[in-house]
């Protein structure tokens, strides 16, 4: 698969605070993003022949019917949650390399009007609330402890990380603040006011050790990217963002991760990405040293630090010191991270903004452009398996 496909188009709707995209519907948002991504590539719906989705992927039958896609040749979805974000482009690439389709869209649409991700594991709520997760045999071993939202669950991993490695809240703050600084320069970002260290420490604690600013946003919006063969990509509007490598999956005993907490001690306090990272570097034929900019799924600040470790940008347990040294700051850090403002400060569209930013960095058109960037890493959420990642490079 290496170097045989490229991302050629990106599109997005505006980003909205939770629920404010109404009266548009989620699939309407997906359609707008998809059409925008095709236009960006210089393509139309008549060129589209595949869907490669992840997490809450909708039934493409209605979507294709709405858009009038002439011939759907591939429609598939990675299982799991936000872990599959970057990997959906790998799924698209696999379809293209296999000859099953030629022009494949990966799209995420999110509307949290009727439900909130922040309470996605709550057993029940006030009457009429639709965020409830029905009691389940596995959930019974988690919910009665009070763990009802992903942030509370990841806080348990973060607490262990602090205990094992001496990672501190100052380290988490550096992730939040550096990301916010990037968002402040972007028109599209939902959070653009300055975040200082004082403000971080004054913020209310949500679930120790995670405070308000360690949490990503709850938003609405859609982001789409279009992938095609490298040959076709070279005839299109923008310089291709070549898919060097993509991998998804993870250890079976990482499994449901935060919703069982039984992961082996060796990698409990990790992002669950170590196996995926190893395969990514193997496929690409390069290592972390080759990466100019990293778009790391940031639903919660400690998970960015754990991904820095799991992808080998620093040693296991050294992620805190790595961020404290200024390495992830744009423009002068050794590895600018989440130059688009991430899930934390730009918008949370379950990781697709990271893929979009990776493409723009490779094109050289990013708002916070890393000068001379030729290789960009995007990752899907540290979550239940599959986790995933994508390595893009310029065609120069």
């Amino acid at each position, binding site marked *: 698969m290496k170097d045989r496909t490229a991302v050629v188009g990106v599109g997005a709707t505006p980003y909205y605070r939770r629920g404010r995209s109404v009266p548009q519907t989620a699939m309407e948002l997906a359609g707008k993003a998809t059409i925008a991504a095709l236009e960006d590539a210089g393509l139309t719906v008549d060129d589209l022949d595949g869907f490669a989705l992840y997490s809450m992927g909708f039934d493409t039958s209605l979507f294709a019917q709405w858009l009038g896609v002439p011939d759907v040749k591939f429609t598939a979805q990675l299982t799991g949650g936000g872990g599959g974000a970057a990997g959906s482009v790998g799924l698209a690439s696999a379809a293209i390399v296999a000859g099953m389709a030629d022009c494949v869209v990966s799209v995420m649409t999110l509307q949290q009007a009727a439900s909130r991700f922040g309470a996605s594991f709550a057993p029940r709520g006030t009457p009429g609330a639709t965020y409830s997760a029905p009691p389940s045999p596995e959930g019974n071993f988690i919910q009665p*402890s*009070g763990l009802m939202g992903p942030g509370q669950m990841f806080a348990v991993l973060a607490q262990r990380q602090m205990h094992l490695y001496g990672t501190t809240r100052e380290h988490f703050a550096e992730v939040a603040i550096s990301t916010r600084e990037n968002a402040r320069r972007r028109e599209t970002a939902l959070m653009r006011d300055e975040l200082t260290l004082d403000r971080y420490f004054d913020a209310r*604690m949500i679930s120790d050790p995670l405070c308000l600013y360690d949490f990503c946003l709850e938003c609405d919006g859609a982001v789409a990217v279009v992938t095609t063969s490298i040959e076709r990509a070279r005839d299109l509007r923008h310089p291709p963002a070549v898919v060097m490598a993509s991998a998804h999956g993870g250890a079976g005993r990482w499994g449901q991760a935060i919703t069982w907490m039984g992961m082996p001690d060796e990698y409990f306090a990790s992002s669950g990405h170590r196996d995926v990272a190893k395969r990514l570097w193997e496929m690409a034929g390069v290592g972390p040293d080759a990466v100019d900019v990293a778009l790391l799924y940031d639903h919660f600040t400690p998970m960015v630090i754990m991904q820095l470790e799991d992808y080998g940008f620093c040693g296991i347990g050294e992620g805190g010191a790595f961020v404290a040294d200024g390495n992830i700051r744009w423009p002068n850090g050794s590895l600018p991270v989440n130059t688009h403002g991430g899930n934390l400060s730009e918008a949370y569209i379950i990781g697709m903004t990271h893929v979009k930013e990776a493409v723009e960095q490779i094109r050289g058109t990013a708002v916070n452009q890393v000068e001379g960037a030729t290789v960009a890493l995007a990752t899907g959420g540290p979550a239940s398996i599959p986790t995933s990642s994508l390595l893009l490079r310029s065609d120069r």
Partner: protein
Amino acid sequence: MSAPRGVLPPDVVWLAPNVFTEPFWLATAEHRLTLPRCTSCGTYRFPPSAFCFHCRAQAVEWVEHDGTGTLYSFTIIRHAVIPDVADALPLIAGVVELPGTGGVRLVASIVDTDLDAVAIGKPAELVWYDVREGTTIPCFRLV
């Protein structure tokens, strides 16, 4: 019904056992902690499931455990993600590892414990929370 300090209100605690998990909850209703152990290779599996993740055998025996363990990690929940839990906050959600089980961990409320006394590595002992007739869930107190 007895409720230790620091648990969820009964209205948000509902069980939905299946064939694999029901023996666990039948035992807790009798204030007994039992864990499924593979009859072929002796590996504990938790939560209860259809297969041994080590040898893939299906049969288990339910082994009693005294419920003394060690706090592996935790979070202090201070914000109500749904209104129903607001009055119960703050809550300590803990992960307790049980010795002699190959690393079985229970995720449970840490009860009757001051917030500033919570620390990873502390010994924990079992406390029962009788939610309603027939439903009892395990919790832990740090000692």
